[in-house]
């Protein structure tokens, strides 16, 4: 399963787990500035529809470059978007973490994410398969790409006032 490389993945697993949990914690707390700091500017944050891998030529739920990520967060924060003022509250769990690949300083991680949102006294549950491409830097991991595949991405969804 894991393509064993020179990197010791046994020692790596607790490190990437800590990173994914910290990211999940930031997203639940809506600490978006700190979340933006986790990114490499050239990275894309993508929620695809269906099983496509050609995100540029497909319709996605979102396919954000650095500017779109910042605009999205600005929109959440300005208070003019009725759906995100106030936003739904979320509690998420990230688990089933698998190191898919580790080559040089680039690590690919698969994980499962469950998000429960609450708004209007109504709760909704979302499940997703996530793939993070992380880069190990002197100041810790940075996200080069994050792909969140909702289990029902090609089905009837609701609108989201938060990030996965």
């Amino acid at each position, binding site marked *: 399963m894991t393509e064993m490389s020179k990197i010791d993945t046994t020692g790596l697993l607790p490190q990437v787990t800590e990173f994914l949990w910290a990211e999940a914690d930031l997203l639940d707390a809506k600490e978006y500035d700190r979340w933006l700091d986790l990114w490499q500017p050239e990275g894309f944050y993508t*929620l695809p*529809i269906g099983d496509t891998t050609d995100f*540029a*030529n*497909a*319709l*996605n*739920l*979102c*396919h954000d470059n650095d500017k*779109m990520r910042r*605009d*999205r967060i*600005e*929109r959440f924060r*300005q208070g*003019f*978007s*009725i*759906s*995100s003022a106030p936003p739904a509250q979320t509690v998420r769990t990230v688990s089933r973490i698998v190191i898919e690949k580790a080559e040089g300083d680039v690590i690919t991680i698969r994980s499962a994410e469950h998000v429960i949102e609450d708004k*209007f006294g109504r709760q909704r549950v979302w499940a997703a398969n996530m793939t993070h491409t992380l880069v190990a830097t002197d100041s810790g991991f940075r996200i080069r790409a994050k792909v969140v595949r909702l289990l029902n991405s*090609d*089905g*009837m*969804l*609701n*609108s*989201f*006032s938060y990030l996965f």
Partner: protein
Amino acid sequence: MSLDMPKFSDLDALYSSDAKVATQMYEDPDLFKLEMDKIFRKTWVFVAHDSEFPDKGSFKLSTVGLEPVIVVRDRKGAIHVMVNRCRHRAATVCEVKKGKTSSFQCPYHGWGYGLDGSLRALPYPEQYGDDFNKDQHGLQRLRTESYNGMVFATFNEDIEPLVDFLGSEVCRYIDLFMKQGGGFPVTVLGEHQFTVPMNWKVQLENTTDAYHFPVVHKSFLQSLDGETNEIFQFLETGKGFVEDLGNGHSVMAMIPELIDLDDNLDAPIPERFTELAQELRDEGYPEDQVKKIVRAVGGAGFNLNLFPNVSFSLAFFRVLTPISVEQTDIRHMALGMEGGPAAANQMRLRLHEHFQGPMGFGSPDDAEVWERVQRGTKGGEDLPILVNRGLVDETPGTLGPRGHISAETGMRAAYKMWKRMMSQ
């Protein structure tokens, strides 16, 4: 009508002559049932765009009102729309949303149907006796017609031809809308789907509501560059209009200079498209085609709203599917240029993602206010919902009244048709 459902014998109380809508219209389950019968089973309902099932044997699942249907192209290219229900014991014969096949087979007892819905074969037919007639046990077929790639179906065998139902003005606007293929055929590139706890008419109203735009979509407008933001200031400039096009249809022209995309092609290319234009030039497209494609990428300058379930909305199709009196599914179909430059289609995809769908900068705010309408109607049962805005300064248009860009003329067109159909 009073005979089958005396509860709704007074249609004027539901939609008054001075354009007031009764609260019941959004929340009475009996009225909803009646609407499914008197409207969705009786008129032309949009089911698919040609490009969604392009080849012989291609199909897609859709709905007509509450009823699941299969839209399919047979070996000769003819389009069939059939109820997705086996004639034996009612199981759906297809649960694949989209694909290609040579037949449909019921998974329960193996009855097999052709692409035109005819019953081809069934296991052990002997027990039905010699007089069993396969011809009478095909999938239930709907009357199907299309206009400029838009496929409609109806259960009503006696209804007027589709083009007559649409009318001359709607057909003219459909043709204008399709110019955003930029010289290529318009194709569906994908779709966003979300369900909203609201009555279907709340959505029907919204597609012809310019009044909400600067309020609900302020956060979207703030994310635009100055020049593009300017284009969306249609309430400020007041140049546009809303016009009743007959049979419940209407047009809302927000950006009149972009009604016909072939007009003013010599106008300077907007800032946000300069990079794309250069890319197309570098790919070898001649300047006149570059201008045409770039103009098309931004979409048309109007919403064309068809009663009862589809809107041609600037750059995409918006389709509503009623689920229950307080639940409606929405699909936003992204459009592109079939065989057109990848860079242009990519830009259209990114523009669609920017506003539409569950994570767009626009749709979630729409969904929120629609739900707020449904929640609000729980109070003040006797208070009317007002769609009388702009009655004061309407003028005669080509086929019906024309009002200010923020007028509720399009909603009145839809409710007039609603009333006509509910009274039959």
